[in-house]
């Protein structure tokens, strides 16, 4: 029981830190609340969907921005918009914030700015991925130890 408790506390601390550092926001908590016995893997499922989506979009944008001339900013903008929607749905705040800056660079057709943002998005994304994976691992450990995942209020 001690282990479970410890794990649970660890889990809570960790997710609190994620919130505190702005990786996640309220929306993620909402998602966690949506998870119940009917859909036990809901959050993981959504998160993996998000990561897939992210990877695809980042690749798309990187390809579009590779061109030295004649970058199709519309296409980039569409991708950023998608990414922003996804990230706000999942509550990935930092990714979303970068997306907002990204979009304004797209609008201004600023390739340099776009590239910088792309880099940031990639970085934020991989950071988030790592963090979430850790979180999910913790979750699994709790479950494996026979405890229940604590809900965050």
């Amino acid at each position, binding site marked *: 029981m001690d282990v479970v408790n410890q794990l649970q506390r660890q889990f809570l601390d960790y997710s609190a830190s994620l919130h505190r550092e702005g990786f996640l*926001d*309220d*929306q993620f908590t*909402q*998602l966690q*609340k*949506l998870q*119940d016995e*009917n*859909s036990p893997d*809901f959050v993981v*499922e*959504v998160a993996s*969907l*998000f990561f*897939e*989506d992210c990877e695809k979009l980042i690749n798309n944008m990187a390809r579009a921005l590779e061109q030295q001339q004649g970058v199709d900013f519309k296409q980039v903008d*569409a991708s950023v*918009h*998608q990414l*922003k*929607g*996804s*990230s*706000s*749905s*999942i*509550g990935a*705040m930092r990714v*979303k*914030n970068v997306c*907002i800056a990204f*979009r*304004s660079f797209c*609008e201004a057709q600023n390739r340099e700015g776009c590239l910088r943002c792309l880099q940031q998005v990639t970085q934020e994304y991989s950071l988030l991925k790592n963090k979430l994976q850790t979180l999910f691992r913790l979750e699994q450990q709790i479950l494996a130890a026979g405890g229940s995942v604590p809900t965050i*209020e």
Partner: protein
Amino acid sequence: MGLKLQQSQHQHQHQHHSVAVKVNEQTGTKRGYTFIQANRAWLPKFLLLWVMVMAFLSTWIYKKMDADIKVRRKEVLSSMCDERARMLQDQFSVSVNHVHALAILISTFHYYKNPSAIDQETFAEYTARTAFERPLLSGVAYAERVVHSERGEFEKQHGWTIKTMQREPSPVRDEYAPVILSQETVSYIESLDMMSGEEDRENILRARATGKAVLTSPFRLLGSHHLGVVLTFPVYKSKLPTRPTVEERIEATAGYLGGAFDVESLVENLLGQLAGKQAILVNVYDITNSSDHLIMYGHQNQDGDLALLYESKLDFGDPFRKHTMICRYQQKAPTSWTALTTAFLFFVICLLVGYILYGAAIHIVKVEDDFHEMQELKVRAEAADVAKSQFLATVSHEIRTPMNGILGMLALLLDTDLSSTQRDYAQTAQVCGKALIALINEVLDRAKIEAGKLEMETVPFDLRSILDDVLSLFSEKSRNKGVELAVFVSDKVPEMVMGDPGRFRQIITNLVGNSVKFTERGHIFVKVHLAENTKPVVDAKVETCLNGGSDGGVPISDAHQFKTLSGYEAADERNSWDSFKHLVSYEESRYDASINMTVPGETSQSVTLMVSVEDTGIGIPLIAQDRVFMPFMQADSSTSRNYGGTGIGLSITKCLVELMGGHISFVSRPQVGSTFTFTADFGRCKKASFNDTKKSNTEDLPSSFRGLKAIVVDRKPVRAAVTRYHLKRLGMLAEVAGSVKIAASACGKNGSSCGSKIQPDIILVEKDLWLSVEDGGLSLRMLDWKQNGQAFKLPKMVLLATNITNVELEKAKAAGFVDTVIMKPMRASMVAACLQQVLGIGNKKQAGKDVQNGSLRSLLCGKKILVVDDNMVNRRVAAGALKKFGAAVECAESGKVALKLLQIPHSFDACFMDIQMPEMDGFEATRQIRMMESQANEQMNGSGIDKGFARKGEWHVPILAMTADVIHATYDECLKCGMDGYVSKPFEEENLYQAVTKFFKV
């Protein structure tokens, strides 16, 4: 948080957009420059060019006119000259003819007669008497031809010798021509040899050779020294052959008749007869010798106008001699003032016209410049205004989000174990936070109103239930303060009206909230009636004075009490019972009379309501009354210290009322109270839609009380009327009695005589009345009643109270009241619930209510919902959320797929649609879905109603837009393309609930 950031980003875009618009406008105005504006630099040059052209033109005009005048002058001169020449010629020829006649006379009487019939005497007399015939001739004389051989004989015969012109005896010559006959005037030339003068000799020779009159060149006449010419005529002695030769003529010549023309006096004479002799100078010349013109008349000196001469030919009948007349003006041509003035005036006028045009152009340029400047300033001012509103909206929105976090955290904090001090701090923080949120919402509202973004909905709603809701919000506060809170809606106000329920609620909440805040005693009374009704009320005031006594049942025990709801004085007397009673009774009579008829005015499309909120609070100081509706103004700074608030509420209220087509005003007396009154226009509901929406939107009042009778025991008529209004809404018949005694006696009387008009089922008694007056007596009465009237169903006694203590409650129970006390403020639903409890009538509705009050889950459970979003993650999240509430969710990743899924027939209950999607966006998809549905509906109607899959009356799947952008989500656009509403993305429970309740009824 997600919402917020997307929001701000959108606003950023919007600002970009507005800048672009501004630039467009500027280029637009540049395009709008007029011709004048475009050529402003050329204006002075245009003016100069104009002046030059005009100067040239006027010079030309002058020259043309001058030339015309000269031509005319020349014509005048020539005609005058010709006239003179002709006359001269005529007179001359008349004289010549006469001399000719004289010649014939001489040849007839001197030569053909023998002896001669003429001698010097006869000739002299004859010529003297006929001199008037020859006015131009100074005299005539006849000279005989004498050859040298005959000279001696001749001289002898006449007795004198032939003399030369110099009066000397003539030298020897071949021929002589001595004058033998002469007129008296020239008698001095008798015996002079005419051939001795060179001129005369030539003349004589020429005359006899031609047989015609010949003229000498001009010379000074002997007698007068005038210039003159001598006319010589030959006289032949025998008749000449028809075509005589020169020799024959010479041979036949007998003598010569001569006469001297005094040309000078001749012309002088002539000119004297003519008009304008002063105007012109006439010269007559002999031009036989073309190189040397001999002057016959006129001055040789060259005065007069030498520039203009006219020459007329003169023919005096001598082909050898040529004469000419030259005329010229005596004076030089005068400067033609007409031409000069005309030209000058023309120039001046043109100059002025040019200057005026120039001035106008300059003015136009200036005005246009000003205009452009103003326009630019206007654009900037507007942009600034928009920016301000946007800034406000953004900032308030940005504040709201973290505030939500703070409030949430505080709520969490309060749930934990806290010491009482800590709890106090946290609670205070929470209250402050809530106040801040409320303020921000108000600021946001105001910004929206200013930005013109606030739009009024037009949906049917039940005004009464909204009023009940608002009252229930404040019921606890008012109860704590001991303030009576009541609402009264006139029967004439339609049950359902079209308008914006949310905004109406906001107005009422604002006003009532204010009143509650500032009222410590007395009452707050909300009253709604038709605006048209106010007039008869005022008119009826006099009448009510007369009727006042007949009301009898209301004894006024306390003279200081006012006839208002609570007895306290109110600021606006119109709300006091005197007029209010009349309004009620007026309505009743009308209502009863026309219960089955159309109420007048119902035919019109709109209805104007008058709502008044009356309180007995501290009132508004007189000096502050005129800035009550100004934003952020409060009566004075101490107000906000004592009562809180920002003072923005009333300004928003005013805006909202004006948006509803109404007007707000107030009457306030310090320390007495305030009454805010506003009007608002609402649409009338059409019956058809009325029935549809009624179910969904109104909480239905139970019908189980219909026909029940009640007696309201209350001494305050206004309060009684309010109670009666609520009972009436439940379908109950209510009577008012001034005291329990009256009520009881009415009961008893009716009980004994079986033809009961009123057999009360319930008696409602005001608490204060019961406490103060009846007290002990009542319970006795009640017991008495209980014993006597077993045969009748006893009426239930219910107590009405604003607040009640436990002791009082016990006492009431003892006095025979039922357990339930109806707590004020009264609401129809609450009264219904209490009465249900009292009467034990079926609680079916109550059960229903629980379901209705249930969460989203109850709404969405079992519903089949389609989620359309191109973003996989969003889709999954939305689906997850909806599933959580028990809905069956299907997903579509694009508008096209959604269209396919929504092909009719389908089994979806609702559709959540993302707006921004590639290929086909949410708006377009919705449009197409609606089109599909309307086609299906048409077909269905065409082929009979009850066919196959006609589940509902019509196909219309509710479509809700999902958008991240709530403020700017143009609700309009959603509605335009056929959507039913929108929900924010990511879902917020409350928002989702609001949107969904519209469609899913329990």
